[in-house]
């Protein structure tokens, strides 16, 4: 298969125009960290890799706004921002490989979504190279802007089905001066929910709250505070007192241990042949766990992480018998849907991907999504078949 590596937005535009003339079917690849997300793509004539699009276009530290080419990796961006006392509040896995364009394409986020939102919420503008080769910019380079339709929101999470993301404009935040992680051991789902309630009642504002399943029906809850040193210390102390009053033992972690905890939750999202994302309401952890039980039982090295303030969970592991996993997935999805939520397959063995739709039934507004795809990509040449309902 042909592989292109354009090195500028102009080159992308030229390339897509050329592909439009020849009706070439295209796939887009950033860091390649989410290639298994969604359904297997239809046949492709060529792929466009963004790794040569790896320049910072514009960075004004005093405005906390950065414009970057799509192939810039998350760690490349973070190290530049850090040297200016800033960061992008997105701590998605694979920072060394995941590209900004890829993160936008999948709507990436990490545990800090609890404070900063996901990349969706920090994305100020996008330059999209359309299927016809035209460059379409939307949004702007300022934090506040309501001029025109918010196309960046639509592009975010669209999995390359509307065009090639060439430039992204992102809002940065000040780098916190201090960080403290505390963990609470062996909580039941209802204790996890109660602890989140307690945090809120106490008006504490953690930047991440993640529960990791440690065994049948038990979780280790990690809570991270970030900000100025004195505030972080006092807020962490208040949380420890609160946990104790609720009957949990609370452990402040030293830096290497803290990092290990957050890497463990990263691993849940990035290891294992089968990986799913499940969404429900934050208080529905016990129900989510029930719905996932048969699936987890069918996985070796099964793990489950729950973003407790958001209601988003990640389950992963190695399927014991890939032939049987489809049924457990089906049951888990039906359960999630009954809770008003969803289950998305982020990675799976080929046999599972071939028979189990990664996204589930399309939503009631699917015909609008089809209309959108039809207008942006009338010949269905861009990443066709991977997204919801085969978009």
């Amino acid at each position, binding site marked *: 298969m042909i592989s292109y590596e354009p090195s500028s937005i102009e080159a992308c535009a030229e390339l897509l125009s050329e592909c439009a003339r020849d009706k070439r079917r295209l796939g887009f690849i950033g860091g390649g960290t989410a290639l298994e997300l969604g359904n297997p793509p239809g046949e492709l004539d060529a792929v466009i890799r963004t790794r040569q699009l790896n320049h910072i276009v514009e960075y004004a530290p*005093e405005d906390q706004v950065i414009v970057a080419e799509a192939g810039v990796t998350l760690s490349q961006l973070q190290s530049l921002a850090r040297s200016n006392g800033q960061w992008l509040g997105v701590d998605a896995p694979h920072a060394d490989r995941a590209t900004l364009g890829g993160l936008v394409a999948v709507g990436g986020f990490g545990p800090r979504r609890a404070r900063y939102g996901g990349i969706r*919420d920090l994305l100020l503008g996008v330059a999209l190279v359309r299927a016809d080769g035209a460059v379409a910019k*939307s949004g702007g380079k300022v934090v*506040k802007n309501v001029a025109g339709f918010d196309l960046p929101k639509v592009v975010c999470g669209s999995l390359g089905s509307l065009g090639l993301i060439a430039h992204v404009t992102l809002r940065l935040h000040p780098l916190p001066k201090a960080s403290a992680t505390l963990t609470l051991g062996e909580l039941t789902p209802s204790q996890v929910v109660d602890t989140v*309630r307690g945090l809120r009642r106490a008006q*504490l504002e953690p930047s991440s709250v993640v529960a990791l399943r440690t065994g049948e029906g038990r979780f280790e809850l990690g809570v991270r505070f970030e900000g100025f040193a004195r*505030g972080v210390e006092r807020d962490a102390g208040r949380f420890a007192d609160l946990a104790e009053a609720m009957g949990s033992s609370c452990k402040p972690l030293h830096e290497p241990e803290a990092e290990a905890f957050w890497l463990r939750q990263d691993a849940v999202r990035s290891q294992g042949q089968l990986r799913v994302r499940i969404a429900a309401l934050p208080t529905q952890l016990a129900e989510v766990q029930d719905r996932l039980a048969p699936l987890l039982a069918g996985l070796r090295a099964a793990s489950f992480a729950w973003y407790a303030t958001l209601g*988003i969970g990640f389950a992963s592991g190695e399927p014991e018998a890939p032939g049987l996993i489809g049924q457990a997935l089906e049951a888990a999805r039906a359960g999630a849907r009954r809770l008003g939520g969803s289950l998305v397959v982020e990675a799976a063995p080929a046999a599972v991907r071939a028979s189990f739709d990664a996204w589930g039934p399309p939503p009631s507004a699917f015909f609008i999504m089809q209309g959108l795809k039809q207008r942006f990509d009338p010949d269905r040449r861009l990443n066709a078949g991977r997204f*919801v309902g085969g978009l």
Partner: protein
Amino acid sequence: MPVPVRPLSEPPPLSRQLVARFAAVVGEANCISEPSQLVTYECDALPHLRARPGLVVLPKNRDEVVQVVQLAYAAGLPVVPRGSGTGLSGGAMPIQGCLLLGLSRMKRILEVDLDNQWMRVEPGVVNLDISKRLAPHGYYYAPDPSSAQICSIGGNVAENSGGAHCLKYGFTTHHVLGVELVLADGRVVELGGPVLDAPGYDLRGALVGSEGTLGVVTLVTIRICRMPETTRTLLATFASTADAGNAVSLIIAGGILPAAIEMMDKMAIDAVRSVMGIDWPEVSALLLMDVDGTEAEVEQTAAEASERCLSAGALEVRRPSSAQERDAMWRGRKSAFTAMGRLSPNYIVQDGVIPRSQIARVLTEVARIADSWGVRVANVFHAGDGNLHPLILYDASVPDEARRAEECSAQIVRLCVSSGGSITGEHGVGADKAAYMGEMFSESDLESMNWLRCSFDPETRFNPGKIFPTPRLCGDIPGKYAPHPAEAAGVIGRG
């Protein structure tokens, strides 16, 4: 160059039979077709752009909206949705002869889930009423446009409304989890909902800020926030706006993210002092700031913010000693527009955005532009996010002054765009700024936006003629300044 949209033919005059059909759905009392009564609905809070709707209907629930929209569709009538009519860009200004769909009767709060931090409301619910309802539980709804006391949540969704405290907490788009939407042919779809990350394109994200051009929102699911443990207000005074602008930069560079940083210049301060009788010192610039969070965090951030103001040359940093004093400080800010309205017979409000670091330079340039047109400009704005609100003051009874004010206003908008900013930060494009869209976006940018629109509303039945660059519909010359009654009373502001 206008984006090619299907041209709208002049709607036929409404027959009695047609009016009767609408009345049968919503009741006679909620179906307004008398010309004398229609006048009320000719404009939103941008009174110099006016058009007479053919009919105003005020449905009370989703089913009525569906029936009304279907009737309009069958009759070929364009539909313009309207909330409280406080918009400042003519977004809810009717199209001549259209069906104006007023949603202010749909004001039920249907569900509140504190534990999962969301609630579901009808579009006519007033912004501030949400926070009032939540206050006893210690929660609130974060976006706080200056018109919060009367603007509706449906209108906020249409405009992606901001407010002073959006610097830290984000805009409407960050707080709307889902909507129920009625499309032009009466189909009802749900976009998003209380559970995050529903698979598919983020159509809810596309809808927020679409200015009533995609459909009629009949339900909104919003995120609600726990109140911060503490909020500290600081009022810093300066000898110049340049010093105040530098203070903002220093605060931000110090890693502090205040909930709000508002700036006022001398003309605005003087107006508030003299008209509203607020006890502010006679200075050239001031910053009004809220720093919030946990007690431990705020202790430090407030102290640092205060120090940084002083090192930027602040004359004084005041801290209110009571809740009343704090309220008075904020009342001063919120009544600034009212005060200007009383000082000047007419004014134009701009809403351009610039990169925050350029505040000092751009304000100097704005003053120069004002001088060159022989008009005065006062500045009251959201300094933290660079969202300017220059008020261009003029007297329409002086020959040629209105035109010069318009020219001055246009030049300021262009200055914002050429500084790397935007033509509008929170008021929306509507009818007012449609002509400037081409300065910010290329033909293919606009074409792509139009594709989005057409995916929802292929026949452009909703709010046609808005957002995209078109000739102004009427009244290129602003009329006499006419404040909303609540604004006249100093209850709400415009910024």
